């Protein structure tokens, strides 16, 4: 009965607009729903790294160093490349499509805070990234006896390298999405960047066998450092001597990845476009 005495304005105040966390989670759920419902993207995103590692395992059997099999080495690159596919490529291709379709324009017309859109993408990417990595590792353990990290410290390193790496790649993916002017050009922009980085960062080749100038160029970008951080997790400590710096340089890994998070965030905030050029 008392509720009927409330003036209309009070009712307006009292109505519940979700808080920031709830908004982000709702957006994340929506993004995940959309991702999971487009079957091809699920199959390709999840399946690509697994197929790649199976091919590698079939092509290179043998050992790269005493006690270190080729697949044990290349799993690090595949995990890193998989995380990059889920975040950087996925967003760099999808956001231009959403922009072109006017989905972003619609969001801009609502009271949704801008960051909620990014948060939704991050949540989607993290969930898909974790699932995809877990699958990749499970298949690798089953098929070629991948040795899992043996200490809590290594698992911890696995955690922070993945989180920093996927965050940096997500932000860079959102940032690069503004370069594409149309829905179609998204993959044209992103795919070469991703492929070149993968070839030069030690995903497909043993990093130290690459020409040193190429190693130096790759060291400017996050993927090389993600691979290196993951090698410290999956390869024995004795292997550290074979790294270009003579050790896994975890401090530097953290620093470069964090720097790319900051650069990516600034690029996102500074250059993100909600509408296409023809929207005036």
């Amino acid at each position, binding site marked *: 009965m008392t509720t009927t005495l409330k003036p209309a304005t009070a009712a307006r105040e009292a109505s519940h607009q979700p808080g920031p966390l709830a908004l982000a989670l*709702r957006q994340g759920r929506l993004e995940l729903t959309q991702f999971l*419902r487009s079957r091809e993207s699920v199959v390709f995103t999840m399946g690509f790294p697994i197929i790649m590692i199976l091919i590698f395992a079939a092509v290179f059997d043998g050992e790269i160093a005493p006690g270190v099999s080729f697949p044990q080495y290349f799993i690090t690159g595949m995990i890193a490349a998989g995380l990059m596919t889920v975040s950087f490529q996925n967003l760099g291709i999808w956001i231009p499509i959403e922009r072109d379709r006017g989905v972003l324009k619609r969001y801009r017309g609502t009271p949704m805070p801008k960051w909620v859109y990014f948060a939704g993408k991050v949540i989607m990417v993290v969930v898909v990234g974790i699932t995809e990595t877990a699958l990749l590792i499970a298949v690798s353990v089953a098929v070629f006896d991948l040795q899992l990290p043996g200490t809590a410290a290594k698992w911890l390193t696995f955690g922070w390298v993945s989180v920093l790496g996927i965050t940096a790649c997500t932000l860079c993916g959102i940032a690069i999405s503004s370069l594409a002017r149309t829905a179609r050009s998204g993959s044209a922009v992103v795919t070469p960047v991703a492929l070149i980085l993968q070839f030069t960062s030690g995903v497909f080749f043993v990093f130290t066998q690459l020409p040193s100038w190429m190693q130096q160029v790759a060291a400017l970008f996050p993927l090389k450092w993600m691979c290196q951080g993951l090698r410290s997790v999956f390869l024995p400590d004795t292997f550290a001597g074979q790294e270009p710096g003579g050790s896994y340089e975890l401090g530097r890994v953290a620093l470069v990845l964090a720097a790319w998070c900051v650069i990516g965030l600034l690029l996102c905030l500074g250059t993100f476009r909600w509408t296409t050029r023809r929207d*005036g």
Partner: protein
Amino acid sequence: MENELAIVARGLRKAYGENTAVAEVDLEVRRGEVFALLGPNGAGKTTTVEILEGYRRRDAGEVSVLGSDPATPAANWRNRIGIVLQGVGEFDELSVSEVVHHFAGFYADADDPEKVIARVGLAGKSRARTHTLSGGQKRRLDVALGIIGRPELLFLDEPTTGFDPEARREFWQLIRDLAAAGTTIVLTTHYLDEAEALADRVGVIASGRLIEVAAPEHLGNRQQAHATVSWRTPEGLTESAESATPTELVTELAARFGGEVPGLTVTRPTLEDIYLQMIGHR
């Protein structure tokens, strides 16, 4: 001011390179009013409306929409306006119900999503994926998303394009209901009957200039316009005359024919005639 006028624009200008899309537009929309913008393709309707919505930057002029400059709106501003854009694509892989529920979550005082879906006539399509909707059904979804936040001010850019006649009538009723509940409505349209049926005032825009703003019945001095009286002569020919005083002419004709005037019609220019004349002069 804030209380009487929902929109005030003065000297609005926007050019794309050499092409002036909007030139010196002055516009006032009162609270609670239904205002229609009419104009041919490329006249500048969308550009004007999207400046008011905060999507496009103006080159010059002053604008106040619900007391805010749309380029730098107050925090709560987007909660108070609803937007139906002219051409906008669908969401991927989501159902009507999911999209409307999701958007309801963005607003402080959203309407009941199921109610809104029913209101725009999509109740039967609630679970359908948005990309499977027909053109007119997609447009209804756009309208649903425009009104889900219970806006004080609703913009609709050619909302009924693609509607079948029945849907258009239903939509008109929806607009009337919203207006009756106090919503200020700005809509653009190419349909003169729509402007006439809905709008309290109509603005005619051509080549970026607002050439007239008036109630539909007063547009282009329609009421003062001469009526055309036509009738059939005893020889079977149709004759007609323009007259400022048609009643007098008809009385005279009645006397001449000794009662019933064969084939008598008295017409005034339709809104369409007036409108075509207005934009034809550009």
